[in-house]
């Protein structure tokens, strides 16, 4: 079950865009496809959706080769596009019908999603009158209106304000609860961390890291510590020969080379009766892993 990408490659006129990449999405959830600009993410997505043909490899959905005719995918492209002179309702109905829905079903779904994404007042307005963020929400509706099994979202949050970002996040989580498979490509690492269980990072067409995000993080040694306290503990940190990376609003980010240093600091804080609000060993963030891995290349 799920999506399987095996040893897939694709070259264009003068460049190898994707070089022998493989990954699997075996259960519903959000899968992150990450990489720098030009890493091959969009080409991979386009091959997954059957927009362009792969040179080699296998892409299967539920055990069958991917062909646009036999899969029910939803896609929010990175290149946002909309009919500027067409009313929102008309373009949503057009896409819904192209995806096989009848008028009655489409009407119901359009009303539901316009309400859900706070766009109801724009139903009969032309798209050019909407803000960029609202246009993006309309496109998001075109991607999910037919309730697809696999949804590909290329940079879904770019250009959205915090309120709309939150609405979109809630909808994505709802879709996961409904058993949908979501592939998300984004440069916002904190958002990806919030949603994604599994990731693949591409660089210049090649896979440089892939797997469960927490498992990946576990392979990295813990070298950072976060302490939140009202007291000044700078001297104690220095006494343990640790480096203070950040000290802001009662929050201390401390770097160490050996785990025993952290244990020793904790013991000292307790012995000195310092009131500790938070003491947490920090796993490396996705952002740090990304920078480190892509930086290496």
């Amino acid at each position: 079950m799920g999506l399987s990408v095996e040893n897939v490659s694709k070259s264009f006129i003068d460049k190898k865009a994707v070089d022998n990449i493989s990954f699997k999405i075996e259960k519903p959830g959000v899968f992150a496809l990450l990489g720098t600009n030009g890493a091959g993410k969009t080409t991979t997505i386009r091959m997954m959706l059957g927009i362009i043909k792969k040179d080699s490899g296998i892409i299967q959905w539920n055990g069958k080769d991917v062909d646009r005719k036999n899969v029910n995918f939803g896609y929010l492209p990175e290149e946002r596009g909309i009919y500027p002179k067409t009313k929102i309702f008309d373009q949503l109905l057009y896409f819904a019908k192209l995806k096989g829905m009848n008028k009655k079903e489409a009407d119901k779904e359009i009303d539901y999603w316009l309400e859900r994404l706070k766009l109801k007042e724009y139903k009969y307005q032309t798209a050019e009158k909407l803000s960029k963020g609202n246009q993006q929400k309309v496109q998001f509706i075109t991607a999910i209106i037919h309730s697809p099994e696999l949804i590909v979202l290329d940079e879904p949050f770019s250009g959205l304000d915090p309120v709309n970002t939150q609405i979109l996040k809630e909808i994505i989580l709802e879709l996961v609860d409904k058993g949908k498979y979501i592939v998300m490509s984004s440069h916002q690492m904190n958002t990806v961390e919030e949603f994604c269980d599994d990731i693949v990072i591409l660089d210049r067409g090649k896979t440089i890291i892939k797997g469960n995000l927490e498992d990946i993080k576990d392979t990295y040694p813990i070298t950072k510590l976060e302490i939140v306290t009202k007291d000044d503990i700078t001297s104690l940190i220095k006494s343990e020969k640790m480096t203070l990376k950040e000290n802001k609003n009662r929050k201390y980010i401390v770097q160490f080379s050996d785990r025993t240093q952290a244990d020793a600091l904790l013991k000292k804080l307790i012995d000195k009766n310092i009131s500790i609000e938070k003491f947490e060993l920090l796993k490396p963030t996705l952002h740090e892993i990304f920078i480190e891995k892509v930086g290496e290349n």
Partner: protein
Amino acid sequence: MKSLFTVIEFTIKEAVKRKSFIISMIIILGIIVIGFNVPNMISALSGDDNEKTSILIIDEDNIFGEELIEINSSDEDYDYTMSKKNYSNEELDKMFENKEYDSCVRFKKENEKIVIDYIAKSLLMGDSIPESLLENFQMQYTAKKIEEAGITPEQLQAMFTQFEVNTIQTDENAGTGNILVMMLLSIVLFYAIYFCAYQISTSITTEKTSKIMEALVTSTSPKMIVLGKTIGIGILGIFQVIIIATVAFLSAKTFLPDGILDSIINMSNITPTLCLVTLVYFLLGYLTYAFLYALTGSMVSKPEDINSANSPIAVLAVIGFYLSYFSMMNPASNINKFAAIFPFSSPFCMPFRILMGSASNSEIITSILILFITILIIAKVSIKVYSSAILNYGTKMNFKNIFKICKSNKD
């Protein structure tokens, strides 16, 4: 198949709602109605001017004798007054000044020749002696001289017997002179190609520019999009032509004098077979150019590049259009035989050749077959290029690149 109808429906709805479509239709229909009303308007404008032009006719040398001329009074625009008196130019000028006469025709004899002076106050407007009056004088003078020579009216009629000309053609299948209907069809086909098929490339490039293509090709197949647009715009074009033709026909019937329309458009030579063949050529011609325009629309990335990309196709259409007139003038020439087979000109030329009876059945079948195969090839290439090049934003497409992209995106 369902998505094909969805694309057709959307294409038609979008095109009909466009302001440019509505405005151009209103202008075209307005021009037609006004055009057919021009004769009525001219007569309405000149209707108030009921005053006849008064002309003084002076025969001072008594050229026409005593039993003077009976002026043909059927000419309603002029009033004639005859005089044998000799008036000086000053006297005439005074009469013109007093509005007694508008102009004067003076006959005089000079060395046995008859000289006519046409005198008016001002000749700035290019005034000259009315033709009808001149003819009348000539006829009466001739009649007078013939009578003087003693020839009877019967002898005169025998002398001037007019020949009656009949035209007979031996080939019963051949059409005859009135090819106006075919010329109109040729113009309509050119219109369909130039204005309707052209919209396909604009529509594709606009979707490419607005970046909606990517979502569109994941919603349905490129084949359905290209076919849907082509058929949709084609249906709209036919709908436009029907409206324009109906308004033109009704305007002609309503505003033109009875019988004029029938005398201009003689439908007697238009057989059902010819209609059918013409319709087939019309549709195939439209499809040929429509798919060519889909190809150019897919190749360019910016709306401002459409015109330059489309110009070679427009040139092809113009050549085809003018070759059809050449067919009309010279149906037996070799260039016309070629033009009737060549797929980019045959839709314009072949209906003319069929109407004129110069096309054999085998020529018609060959021509339709070549046209059909050409359409299939162009459609396949267009759809291929559309699905490959449509995602190439920004990169300038040339045929070498297109070939490479199509090859790399091979099924």
